[in-house]
Each structure stands twice: as C-alpha cells, then as structure tokens.
C-alpha cells in the first residue's frame, strides 16, 4: 500500500469533516459534530493510466488548532495539506490563506491546495465576486466545493493524490 498522509485543515466549522465524509462515505449530515483531536480516514485513489494507485491517509483535524497545528505532532510526515475555507464566512478565507502560507513555510515542497467550501450557499457563477480579492495571488490552486452536493469534492482529493505521486512525496 502506498500510503500518504494528507492534512485537512481550516477554521472551525468550515466543513472539513463534511468534505472527508462526503469523499469516503459519500454522505452528508446536517448535524454539526465538532472534531476533537483528529479523525483519521483512509481513502484509496485507484490506479490510472498515468499514475499508480495511492492510499490517502486523511487527517481531519480540530479547527481550534489554528496555526498552532504546524507545531503539533499531527503534522509530522504530512505529504500534503488541503486548507479549507467557508465561502459564506470571509474571515475563514483570510484564515485559510494564513494557514496555507504557514504550511508552505513549515513543510516546504509539500503539496498545498485551497478548498473554498459551501458553494451551495452562493450563486456559483458569482463566486469570484463573493470572495472579492481575498484569493488574489493565492499560493496554491483554489477549488470551489460543496460537501452538501458533492460538487468537486472527489476531484480535489484526486488532484492531491496525482500531485503527490508526480512529485514523489
């Protein structure tokens, strides 16, 4: 098994657990259950024409860590981080950028991607307006997702897997 550790980080209540559960179990719950510590999931990305199969070890973390997550033992050995923000709460997007920069600094060379979640709450065609200039000059790719509808959820994790294999992380 080629297992690679992927951190899912972001402010409290942005939908980190919902994204992971949508990916792993293909389900969504409206009932909010805060994550205490970390929930570890495994998700197998099947082999493709261009890349071997890879198992992602997804660390769904407690949003209360904030930027202290980078000094925490949870972060050890991470090959990638998916940093999540909530489109309906601009402050979480600012925090998302700060976390992204923190990860790039703490784990240089590792894969980083931003996820703007809860797109079901806004008009998809207008989402660039909704985030204003907050994502200008982003350090990594930005993907809009909805854990509620499942839009783009698989592709952000599969992209991460492909990048991990490509970069040999």
């Amino acid at each position, binding site marked *: *098994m080629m*297992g*690679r*550790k992927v951190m899912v980080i972001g*402010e*409290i*209540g942005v939908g980190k657990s919902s994204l992971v559960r949508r990916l*792993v179990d293909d389900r969504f719950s409206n009932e*909010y259950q*805060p994550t*205490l*510590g*970390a*929930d*570890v*999931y*495994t998700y197998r990305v099947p082999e493709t024409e261009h890349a071997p199969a890879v*198992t992602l*070890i997804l*660390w769904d973390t407690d949003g*209360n860590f904030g930027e202290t997550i980078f000094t925490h*033992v*949870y972060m*050890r*050995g*991470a*090959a990638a981080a998916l940093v999540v923000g*909530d489109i*309906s*709460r*601009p*402050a*979480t997007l600012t925090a998302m950028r700060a976390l992204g920069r923190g990860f790039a600094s703490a784990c240089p060379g590792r894969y980083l991607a931003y996820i703007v979640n809860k797109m079901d709450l806004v008009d998809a065609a207008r989402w660039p307006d909704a985030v204003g200039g907050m994502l200008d000059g982003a350090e990594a790719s930005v993907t809009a997702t909805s854990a509620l509808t499942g839009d783009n959820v698989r592709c952000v994790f599969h992209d991460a897997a492909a990048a991990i294999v490509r970069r040999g992380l």
Partner: protein
Amino acid sequence: MIDIEPARLPPLVDAAMMLARRGAYGLAWLDADLVVTGRFGALADALEVGEPAAARLPALIGLETALAGLGCEHAPLSMPAIAMHGGAGLGPKVDVSLYRHGPGGAYLLVIARALDPSETTVSLMREMRLRLIAEADLASKSAALATANAELALLNRDLEEFAAIVTHDLKAPMRALRWLTDDVETALAEARPADARAALGELRQQSARLSMMLVDLFEYASLGRCADTRRTIDTGRLVADILASLPRPEGFTITVTGAWPVIETFKAPLDLVLRNLLANAIEHHDRPAGHIEISARAGPAHLHMAVSDDGPGIPRSHHEAVFQPYTRLASGGQASTGTGMGLAFVKRTVDAVGASMVVVSDPSVRRGTTFELAWPAEMAGSTPEQASATT
C-alpha cells in the same frame, strides 16, 4: 516473554500511569521497521504480529522519519485523541504513544482509550461555531449595508445632479418651444403662413433636440450601474469598427498608431469612451479639415491610449468643466450638433470602470487636445507590433 528492560524508567512510568488511569488499553512491541513483534491488551487485538503496525494503524504512516529520530531517554511521540475510521477498530478516540525501546531501534506502542470530552467541551465548541457564524453573518450584513449606503449616497448625488440639470439646463429649450408656439400663433393670426411654417420647422428641431437631450440624460444616469462583464476583445478590431461607423466631414483624417493588443476588459464602456472622444474631436474642431491620432501602448495592468486632435484646444480653466453634462465650449463660432453630453459620458464611464483620464491641452501654447487614458486590462495574448494606419 518480551524483554523491555532497555527502556528507561521515566517514560515507562509515564505509560503505566496513563494505562492505569484508563479502562481500556493495548501494548505492542514493534521492531525497527515498525513491524509488530508482540501485543497485549484489548486495544492491541487488531494488530497482527509479523505485520507492519501501520497496516492496522494508518495514523502511523508518514511518521517513520520522526520515529527514527526518537531517543529512548526522551519523551515519547504522542498523538492524542485520534480516531481511526474504517481501520483498526480501536474505538471512538484513542491516545497513541510510541516509546523508543532501547538502542536496537525497537519501539513500544501504547494505545489508551482517550478521555471522553465532556458535554461542556462539546457544547462550548458548538457555541463557538454558532458565534463565529453569527459574527460572519453580521460582518457580511454590515458590509452589505455599507455598500447600500454608498450606493444610496451615489444615487442621491445623481438625483441632485439630475434635478439640477432638469431645472436649469432644460429650461432653455423648453422656453424656446414656448416662444416658437407663440411665434406660430402670431404668424397665423397675422396671416403669415410662411413665417408660421418656418417657426414650426424650428419647433420641430427644438423638440427633436429636447428628446435627444432627455435620452442622453437617461443614459448618463444609467452609466456606472450597468452590469457589463469582462470579455476578450481585440482592441485593434474595436477601433477599426468605431472608425468605420463614425461620421466625419471630408478633409478629416484619423491615424491609428501604436500596438493595439487583445485584452480582457469591459467592451461596451471602452467602445463608448473611444467613440465619444473621437466624435468630440471632430465635432468641436474649428476648421473644415483636421487630423486626429489615436494611439495605444500596453502596460502591465493597463492599456494606455491617447486621442489627440489639432483642434482649437481647451483652456486649462475649462479642463474640468468640459466633463459636466450639457457643457459645450465655443468651437470657432460653428454650431455644434451634439448635446454636450459626450465628455460627461466619457468621464462617468471612466470612473465606473476604474480607469483614469488626463486632459493635455493649453491653447495659449499650441493648438490641439490630447485625452490620455489608462484603461484597466489584462493582456489576453501577445501584443502586436507597432503599426500605423490613416483613414
């Protein structure tokens, strides 16, 4: 029997204390390659001897380097409160600690049931999330309110401007209409049908002009609130289209110079601005023949354009006034056919798209006027080479 003697006492005391406090636990011994060599306790049942520990405990994946650097005299590598989903069946949350077990590189793995978070902790976290959402909602509503207030202020300013124009500038043509109807009435009463017909003709012209002014005024009021979106446009093609449809007297030449790139920008406003600047240069020229030059240069974030004419120029004292609605400066005594709204349209559009414009003209020094524009644009392709064409 597994020999655990090489491990120093303090870490093991620490482990023992932890296990003593918890109801459920598991112990496992791992070799230097993290393969399970022995296990004990309910929470270690899922681990298989001879198998890498990470096979059932995926949380250990990625930690190889960190573990290799662990000294047996130091604190363990501890991962508190983790839940393994779909894996080892260790229960909801466990604390996992790895102790270096002597210089041979073996490890002691300790798994203990994590302390359940109190109801208070969970409800505090729920409260925190609700508060954060409420704060974000409030911030969003405040921002929307501020935007609405700014728009309202703009609308009020527009309304005042509109009222001022209607009450002042439209009085003259309205008065003219009234006087012309008086002229018609008088001419008819005095049996002067030719004069009546002439007055009616003028009345028709004034009425048409008044309609044109009102249409322009409505368009002016609409500018800045139009929802245009950025699109890819070939500015060279745009200028060619404008020139093809721009009426101008014989003897007027227009030269297009510089490099006109393909850009991402607002098309309709750019069309309006260039069209009005060119029309203004022709309309307010004081001679039957004239020359206009329109040029472009691509910058990193802007397309820099200039429209220059060899007309009478604009006195410096009028550089701001020309952008006021219904302002028409004298152009060599010639009657102007416009409504005086062209440059007002230009200024308002330039402001609406975030462009900037400078007027360069001083008739006391030399003839001619240049309007220099810095238009926000993203280059969508390679910039063409410099070219020049006169029509």
